[in-house]
C-alpha cells in the first residue's frame, strides 16, 4: 500500500474524526459541567435527524434544518431537563443512566410510530453535491462542509468557554456551584442553559449527519456508542480531550479500513483499551 494511499486514508480519518467530535462534544460538555450521564444524547441526535428529514421534505433542502434542528433539540433537552432530569441531579449515576435511557427509548419509539421503521433519505444539498479532487484524493464536498462546521464549532466553543464571562461562570459553576450562587449567579439556570446547549449540539450533529447516513430509528443508539468512546477516551468532561480522541479514533478507523478492514471497528475499542490502560482518566482527563 503506497504512502499516498495511506495519506488519503489519514485525511479521510480527520474528516471522520471531526464528525465524531461534533457528535460527542455536547455529551462531554454536559458531563463536565454537571457530572450528569446523559444516555438521551443519542435521542436528541436522532430526533433532530428526523426533524432534518421533515424540513428537507418541506423545503426541498436540508440546509434550513441546520438552524431548526438544533433549536428543536435544545427545546427537547430543556423540557426534559425541567420536567424530569433536574430531579435526578442528586441521584446516583445509575439512576441517571436508567432515566435517560428510558427517555431515549421513548423518543425512539415515538419516531418509529410517526415515521415507521424503514430508513428515510435526506438528499445532500445541491450546493454540496459534488466532490473535491486533490491530486488523486476524492472527497465529498458535503463531508468537507461538515468538517468546516465542526471546526467552527470547536473554535467557537473554545472561545465561549475560555474567553468570555459566561464561560467563566459556567466553569466556576462546574467547580463549585455553591460559591457561584453566593456571588449572585443562579447555578440552576447555568446548568439549564448548558443542558439546552448540549442538546443543541447533538441536534446540529443529527442534522449534519442525516444526508451522510440517512435517518432511521436506531441511529441514536449507534451514535451514543461512538460518542461515549470519544468522551471516555478524551477524558470525561474534557473539551480538548474530545477533539483529540475523536481525531484519533477517526484516523485509526480510516487507516485500519485499508490495512485490516475486518478489524477496523474492533481497533476503535483496541485503541481505547490501550490508552485507558496507561491513562485511566483518558487523554486529557483529570485523575
Amino acid at each position, binding site marked *: 500500500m503506497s504512502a499516498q494511499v495511506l495519506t488519503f486514508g489519514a485525511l479521510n480519518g480527520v474528516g471522520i474524526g471531526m464528525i465524531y467530535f461534533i457528535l460527542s462534544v455536547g455529551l462531554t460538555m454536559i458531563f463536565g459541567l454537571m457530572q450528569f450521564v446523559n444516555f438521551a444524547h443519542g435521542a436528541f441526535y436522532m430526533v433532530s435527524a428526523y426533524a432534518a428529514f421533515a424540513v428537507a421534505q418541506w423545503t426541498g433542502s436540508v440546509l434550513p434544518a441546520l438552524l431548526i434542528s438544533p433549536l428543536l433539540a435544545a427545546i427537547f433537552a430543556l423540557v426534559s431537563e425541567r420536567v424530569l432530569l433536574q430531579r435526578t441531579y442528586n441521584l446516583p449515576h445509575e439512576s441517571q443512566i436508567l432515566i435517560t435511557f428510558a427517555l431515549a427509548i421513548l423518543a425512539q419509539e415515538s419516531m418509529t410510530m410517526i415515521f415507521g421503521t424503514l*430508513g428515510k433519505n435526506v438528499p445532500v444539498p445541491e450546493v454540496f453535491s459534488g466532490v473535491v479532487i486533490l491530486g488523486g484524493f476524492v472527497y*465529498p464536498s458535503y*463531508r468537507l462542509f461538515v468538517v468546516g462546521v465542526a471546526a467552527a464549532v470547536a473554535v467557537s466553543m473554545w472561545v465561549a468557554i475560555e474567553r468570555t464571562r459566561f464561560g467563566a461562570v459556567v466553569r466556576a459553576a462546574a467547580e463549585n456551584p455553591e460559591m457561584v450562587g453566593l456571588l449572585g449567579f443562579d447555578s440552576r439556570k447555568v446548568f439549564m442553559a448548558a443542558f439546552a446547549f448540549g442538546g443543541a449540539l447533538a441536534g446540529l450533529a443529527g442534522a449534519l449527519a442525516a444526508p*451522510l*447516513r440517512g435517518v432511521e430509528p436506531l441511529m441514536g443508539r449507534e451514535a451514543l456508542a461512538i460518542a461515549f468512546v470519544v468522551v471516555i477516551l478524551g477524558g470525561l468532561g474534557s473539551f480538548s480531550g474530545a477533539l483529540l480522541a475523536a481525531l484519533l479514533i477517526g484516523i485509526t478507523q480510516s487507516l485500519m479500513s*485499508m490495512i485490516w*478492514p*475486518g478489524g477496523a471497528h474492533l481497533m476503535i475499542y483496541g485503541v481505547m483499551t490501550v490508552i485507558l490502560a496507561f491513562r485511566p482518566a483518558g487523554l486529557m482527563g483529570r485523575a
Partner: protein
Amino acid sequence: MLDRRKILAAAAVGIATPALLRRAWAQQDAIEIGSLVSLSGTFANIGEQVDIGSKVAFEHFKSAAGKPLRYVQLDDQGDPGRAVRLTQDAIRDRGIRFFMNCTNSAIALAVAKEVASSGGVYINQAGADEMTGSLCNKNTFRWPVATYSAVNTTVRPFMKQFPDAKKWYTITGQYVFGDSLLRNLKDVLGEIGAQHIGNSYHSLSDREYSGFITAAIAAQPDVLCICNFGSQTVDVLRQAVSFGMKRNTKIVVVWSTGLDQFQSLGPDICDGVYFGANYWHGVDTPGNRLLTGVIKEKLKVTPSYLLTAGWACTQAMVEALNKAGSTDVPAVIKALETLSYEGPTGLEKVRPEDHQVLKDYYLMVGKPKSKMRDKDDFVEVISAEKAFLAPEKTGCKL
C-alpha cells in the same frame, strides 16, 4: 370428601384443560400458521414489513384445504434462541405444525431444525445457502434464491453489457451471507475471465464506510460490487456515491431488497447503479398483478420485496395445503415438492431435491429521476433469469 390427592389431580386437570381445549379447538376449527417475525430489535424494520405482507395474504386467501386460516404472530425480537422457544411453545401449547417467515438466516436455520424435529412444515425467506444446502431438511422450504443464483443472475448479464469491466473490487459483510456472496462472485469472475482485485470486509456493527471506499478508489476498479444486506447495503452505497464513485466506476449491488432500499436512498443515488433483486413490482405476471392489486387496495402502497416475501411464503403454504387437500404434514410436504404455481415472479416451482423454489432473479438499473413514471418507478429491469446450482452440488441430502 376432598383430600390432598384429589385437589392436586383437579388442579392438574384445571391447568391442562385450557391448553388441551385450545389445541383441540385449533385443530378442528382452523389451520393455525405460526409466523416468525422480529417486531422489535435490530431487524424490526424487516420483520414489520414481512408481518404485514403475510397478514394481507391471510386476509386475501382466507382458507386452505377447506378450513379457515388463522395467523399466529410469533415475535422473536431478532433472537434465534427466542424464535426456537416460541416455536416449541406453539407446537406444544397450540399444536401448530405449519410455520413460515424469518428476518435472518440464523433464525431460519434454528427454527428449521426445531420444526423438522417436531414433524411440521416451514417455508422461509432465508438467504444463506445452507438452507437448501448442507443444512436442508425434509420439512423446510425456501422462497428467495440462494446466493449462487443471485450472483450468477446479476453478474453474468451485467458482463454481457459491459465486457470490458474486468477489474472488480468488493465490499463485503463479514458474516455467512456476505461470505457466500463473495465466494460465488469470485467463482463467476474466474469463469468469465474477470479479475477480483481486492476486497474490504466490514463487520455487522460498522456504519462508517469511507475508509473502505477510499481503499476501493485507490484500487481503481472498473466495478465496485457490494456484497452485504439490509441497511448496510444502503449505507455503503450512499457513501460510495457521495465519494464520486459513479464517475468512473460501475456499482453493482448483488443482493438488494428493492423498493424499500430505493426509497431510503432516493433516485439520485440509485441512478445508474445496478441492483440484483428477488422481486420488482413492475414485472407483469398474473401472480404479481394479483399481489400488487391486493396490496394497493388494502395498504395503499406499492409492494416492496419484504411485503412480497411475507405474501409469497403464505401463498406457497396455501397452494400446498389446497393441493394436499388436508393438513396431514406428509401430504403437504409431498404437495410442496411437486408444487408449481403463479407466484409474484411468474411461474414458480419447488425443486424436490433441495426444497428450493425455482423463480426469477432480476438485474435492474437505477433510472434518472426525469425518467421515473411515478414515485416508485426507480429502476428498469434488464434481465430476469433463473440460475440454480445443480441439486447434486448443493450439498443437500433429504
